């Protein structure tokens, strides 16, 4: 586990999501990146059920339950700007038990799937973000393996990202500034995906 940057790649002008993904992956292959199977990150949204809201005084907080194929036995539960719990995969079973208190907003299920590439010390995942049946955007994840301190390798990550993202320039992820000890962990990657998914959900609302 190293330091990871997750960003949204805008769809190339005059191209579809699928065509833009193909352009990106072709570029990676030309660079010499090696294909290493596929990956998937998914996210389910839970509403605090109306029954608990009044008594607890929390107005409709959203909870996200996510999975990442990089950590197949784990489940990540997050609140926006809140803690991220890393748990066994059967945390999902608990959410079923909690359905009287937390309701799964099934229509909000969002995921990204794509190919996993290895290029020297970098792990690159280019995914198509889908919500329901349609493609909504593109996610690009780059992990730099040998380092766990985000501030020490952000410039290197950025330089590598620019080598295949072209003119698109992702900013430093907000989570890089959150760590007290400066050590990056899997929960930070999930927080970045959560932000990206939220951004894409909102964009979709504008278009529709």
């Amino acid at each position: 586990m190293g330091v990871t940057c997750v960003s949204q790649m805008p769809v190339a002008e005059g191209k579809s999501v699928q065509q833009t993904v193909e352009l990106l992956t072709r570029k990676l292959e030309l660079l010499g990146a090696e294909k290493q199977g596929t990956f998937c990150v998914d996210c389910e949204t839970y509403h605090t059920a109306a029954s608990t809201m009044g008594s607890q005084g929390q107005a409709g907080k959203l909870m996200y339950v996510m999975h990442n194929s990089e950590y197949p036995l784990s489940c990540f539960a997050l609140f926006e700007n809140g803690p991220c719990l890393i748990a066994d995969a059967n945390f999902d079973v608990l959410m079923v038990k909690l359905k009287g208190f937390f309701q799964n907003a099934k229509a909000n299920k969002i995921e990204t799937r794509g190919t996993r590439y290895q290029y020297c010390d970098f792990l690159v995942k280019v995914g198509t973000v889908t919500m329901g049946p349609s493609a909504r955007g593109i996610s690009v994840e780059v992990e730099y393996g040998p380092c766990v301190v985000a501030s020490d390798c952000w410039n290197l990550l950025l330089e590598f990202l620019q080598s295949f993202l072209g003119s698109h320039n992702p900013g430093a992820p907000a989570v890089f500034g959150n760590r007290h000890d400066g050590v990056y962990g899997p929960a930070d990657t999930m927080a970045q995906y959560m932000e990206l998914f939220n951004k894409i959900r909102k964009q979709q609302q504008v278009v529709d």
Partner: protein
Amino acid sequence: MEAPPVTMMPVTGGTINMMEYLLQGSVLDHSLESLIHRLRGLCDNMEPETFLDHEMVFLLKGQQASPFVLRARRSMDKTGAPWHLRYLGQPEMGDKNRHALVRNCVDIATSENLTDFLMEMGFRMDHEFVAKGHLFRKGIMKIMVYKIFRILMPGNTDSTEALSLSYLVELSVVAPAGQDMVSDDMRNFAEQLKPLVHLEKIDPKRLM
């Protein structure tokens, strides 16, 4: 969390409906040694294992009559061990053919920010205690002999006081739903512990 070898995969997990079969009893402090001796002889030949755990019981109140209860447990003597989150369903006494109490259970290992996360979900701590004792195994059966300590100052596990002059003895098996024959093995094992301890199917409703 990386995938462990298949043989180390937890038995609980996935979407399988797991049940805990339970028999309970107690011994006075002065009988502890002889019970431990007996258990060492009967159980799997493993290094004697002791534990010192801090358990917090959390409630989530809604408009439903009964609150949702979750138990968060952490080891106080093994640093770095994951936290343990446990859901226990309503206990079923069943009929005479089933020799143990049965309740639905979900066991989840989590990261150490579990209490913060439960608070964020709207749970509030109801009570807490420290459990200190010995753990034995015999096949899939688990035998716990432990003493419960009251915590004198909330949150401070350094000042505790024994709740009684006895040790609680629990024999439990976690198995998929419907495998009632495990309760036969449990009864046979409990027979072998007589007269040191009488393990029984105790209806918690009777104690209220």
